[in-house]
């Protein structure tokens, strides 16, 4: 089938099998490699994107279900070369090690701060519970989100 999507503000059209995942479409059909493919079970959050404004795991959304939807991936958060304050904060805090979980965490942190501009540490932990990181021990990620909360307009 032909799939039409708005991706990061651009109208995209691509041929897909209805049963493949939105994550597969983003990475393999549209060349957006920011969203990562890890557990494919909706457990790790590395494929977190916005689907019609809601944070979801793209690995669990079938391409057919996304027809006509608006998708924002991690690539859509920066403005050209200028990184989003959440991305800047992750760099500044050293919240990135292997980097595999980072795009999903950045989108999830972006979602949290758009709803709650001054989250407590407990709120940050709860909001990021669906994003697993096997390197950092999370401490610097928590620091990064608090830094981003202070700098996000």
């Amino acid at each position: 089938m032909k799939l039409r999507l708005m991706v990061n503000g651009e109208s995209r059209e691509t041929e897909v099998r209805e049963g493949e995942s939105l994550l597969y479409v983003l990475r393999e059909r549209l060349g957006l490699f920011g969203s990562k493919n890890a557990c494919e079970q909706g457990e790790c959050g590395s494929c977190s994107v916005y689907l019609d404004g809601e944070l979801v795991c793209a690995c669990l959304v079938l391409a057919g279900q996304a027809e006509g939807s608006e998708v924002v991936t991690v690539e859509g958060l920066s403005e050209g070369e200028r990184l989003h304050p959440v991305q800047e904060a992750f760099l500044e805090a050293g919240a990135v090690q292997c980097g595999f979980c980072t795009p999903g965490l950045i989108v999830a942190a972006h979602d949290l701060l758009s709803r709650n501009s001054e989250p407590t540490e407990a709120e940050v932990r709860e909001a990021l519970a669906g994003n697993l990181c096997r390197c950092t021990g999370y401490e610097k990620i928590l620091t990064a989100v608090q830094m981003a909360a202070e700098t996000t307009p």
Partner: protein
Amino acid sequence: MRPYKYVRAQDVDGAVATLAEAPNAAFLAGGTNLVDLMKLEVMTPDMLVDVRRLTSDRVEGLDDGGLRIGAAVPNSVLAADHKIRSRYPALSQALLAGASGQLRNLATTGGNLLQHTRCVYWQDVTTPCNKREPGSGCSAIEGHNKNHAILGASEHCVATHPSDMAVAMAALDAFINVQGPEGERRIPIEELHRLPGDEPQRDTTLQHGELITSVDLPPVEFFSNSKYRKVRERASYAFALVSVAAALDIEDGIVGDVRIALGGVAHKPWRATKAEEALRGEPASEANFRAAADIELEDAQPLRDNAFKVPLARNVITRTLLDLSEEGR
């Protein structure tokens, strides 16, 4: 994942008719349980009929004063609904205690009710499992069974129902509205899920082709004094070892009415009717709460690894009722 056909139905009638003619097809809503199980080849439907946009995605008032929750209402939206938060707080708390933000945004009310057990043997196609392959045996009875049932299990299956939401709905006397090939029917939630018996492959009493279209909550005033408490191995993003949803009506220190349901202990949300019965008309005291919990748990049959669930359930019931008796005074 095995190949399958994806179909987007035009309306509920069409979806039900399509499924009725396709014995190995399944409805697809949020996909947060079905799609992952298909990747593991635990579930192998040959066709998915997408119903996510077919049923209502709104919470609306009913003429009797109750609420109707459309089957397509996402878990996150239902948890945030102000009518649910003020009149049925246990339901909102239960929803927020489940899964992650990403999953709650996708998962629907109807789908949450129908989610499958997280028994590791059911999810592992290399091991025997009577639920997945009737007659093959139960690997959990002698295996790792810390997370398994202590009430209502059978020699064929000791799996538990994983939903938090359904436990709250069981305590809150919800009704499930269903449309199927034979027409519409309305099922008390108590009769939706079933105990495993000798047919553990059947999680619910729904027939093939029946679609949940909405859930009704009755207008019961004291349900505003309700609470969900979940005990798990970490503070977030884990299934319940034991959970309890309870609602308490208390007057001059006496229990007027009460609802209690347990999660993590049985193949279905476990409505603790014996404990409720024991408490009606009795003083709302810690000793009475504890005694009522003991009555409910008398029939518990723990497995090798989960004897801890019996005292845990007793304590969680008692603590939750104590909280409600203080808050509801």
